[in-house]
């Protein structure tokens, strides 16, 4: 019960209902669909880069409160970061949800996304919390490959 009230907290509810990040970007460099076949959640993430910096992000789609809020808060957290910084934050978030990192200090870099910590005690909801993070990971990996291929 405690885990649950912690998870459905004000911040998360706010982001899940009417997120200002739920929109279309004027000119996105990348657009990727994230899909969770178990519960039917589907989001489209858009990303705009400025050199190495994530200049803007937005999402559309539908899903449960946890996946929607996680997407929106992720966008807040990663906007303005370099790709390297973003990768580190993504890695930390995933490790937090999988309970591989529990040290509060180490988790500070997640900013508001630390609000999802208790999802790590709710195995049925782990996929919901990670959907957007895996999707952005795919985009960044794709970008990296393009770089390697000298594009």
């Amino acid at each position, binding site marked *: 019960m405690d885990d649950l009230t912690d998870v459905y907290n004000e911040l998360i509810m706010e982001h899940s209902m009417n997120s200002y990040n739920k929109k279309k970007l004027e000119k996105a460099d990348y657009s990727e669909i994230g899909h969770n076949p178990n519960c039917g959640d589907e989001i489209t993430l858009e990303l705009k880069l400025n050199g190495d910096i994530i200049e803007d992000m937005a999402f559309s789609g539908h899903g*449960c409160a946890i996946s929607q809020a996680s997407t929106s808060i992720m966008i807040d957290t990663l906007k303005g970061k370099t790709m390297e910084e973003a990768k580190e934050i993504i890695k930390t978030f995933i490790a937090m949800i999988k309970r591989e990192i529990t040290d509060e200090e180490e988790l500070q870099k997640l900013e508001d996304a630390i609000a999802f910590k208790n999802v790590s005690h709710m195995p*049925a909801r782990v996929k919901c919390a990670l959907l957007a993070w895996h999707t952005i990971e795919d985009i960044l990996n794709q970008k990296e490959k393009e770089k390697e291929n000298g594009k």
Partner: protein
Amino acid sequence: MNVEEIKKDFPILQNRNIAYLDSGATTQKPLQVIKAVEEFYENYNANPHRGAYSLSMEATEKYEDTRTKIANFINAKHREEIIFSKNATESLNLIAYSYGVDKLEKDDEIVISIMEHHSNLVPWQKVAKQTKSKLNYMYINDEFEISDEEIESKITDKTKIVGITHVSNVLGTINNVKKIIKYAHKKGAVAIVDASQSIPHMKIDVQDLDCDFLVFSGHKMLAPLGIGVLYGKKEILNKMTPFLMGGDMIEYVYEQETTFAPLPNKFEAGTQNVEGVIGLGAAIDYIESLGYDNIQKLEEKVVSYAINELSKLDYLTLYLTPNKENHSGVISFNIKGVHPHDVASILDSEGVCVRSRKPLCATTYEIFRY
């Protein structure tokens, strides 16, 4: 019938503080079933059909006796019309491969309802692709039922296979399977009934239904996981080729050729789930000791109470037929503005186990989007 007494038969309800409302996914198991499995391992375990020693013979006897019990339970004409499988899904795949793929030709039609479980849908997509036949759907009306007109317009002279779930796991609708079977036969098609959600709640009589195939899973009717049944009319099963190849399903094996065992062994390749079979036998005994009449009386009480109370909540939408006689024990609902997954988590925190799902199948299940 005393509910509190019945509850005592289910150890998990003593051990966990839960309201388990997800029996449609899998039922909890009574002690009688758990004990029967234990007793088998403590006294009879051997590989049936394979040993010439008495232990193996006894294991064979227990296994085969249960086949007879199941045949009687669903009123099959012959005991060899009962084939053991892993679950309803495997039974349906057996029909799809050993009947569907073999018998269907280009432009033939397969007709199923839009409320089928994926196990009675995805295999038919595969059959349709492979044989170049067509997969057509019977849709539901705004009472969540399949109308007579829908049945008669979708099942045509080209239809060779009709698949229908007896009770919908999503809507709780009890389909008029007798009418569908009769109409399928009139058009020269075979009819498959998915009894997974009906057999725990109502008497199944395959001769009265006159279905050609009927499938169900043991685990949804108090039996262990991993045991399922395929019923098929003997004359049809006899003409079908085996589904899986291997030990136990053969008669003579030469280097390049094999002749197959007669029914039912022809369709039971490899060492079978004997503990599951024994457990299924015990589950049938348990259901019969309660009696379908009593089960139904109790269900009727619980279900109408639940519907009545849920109807009072204005933030909740119910999806069920208004025709009470066509509705079984599944109650589907949405909470306005809240995703089902979140609802399930919140109920879980109160010890209430419910099923949450996405809209399962494009057309019918659009309604479940909030």
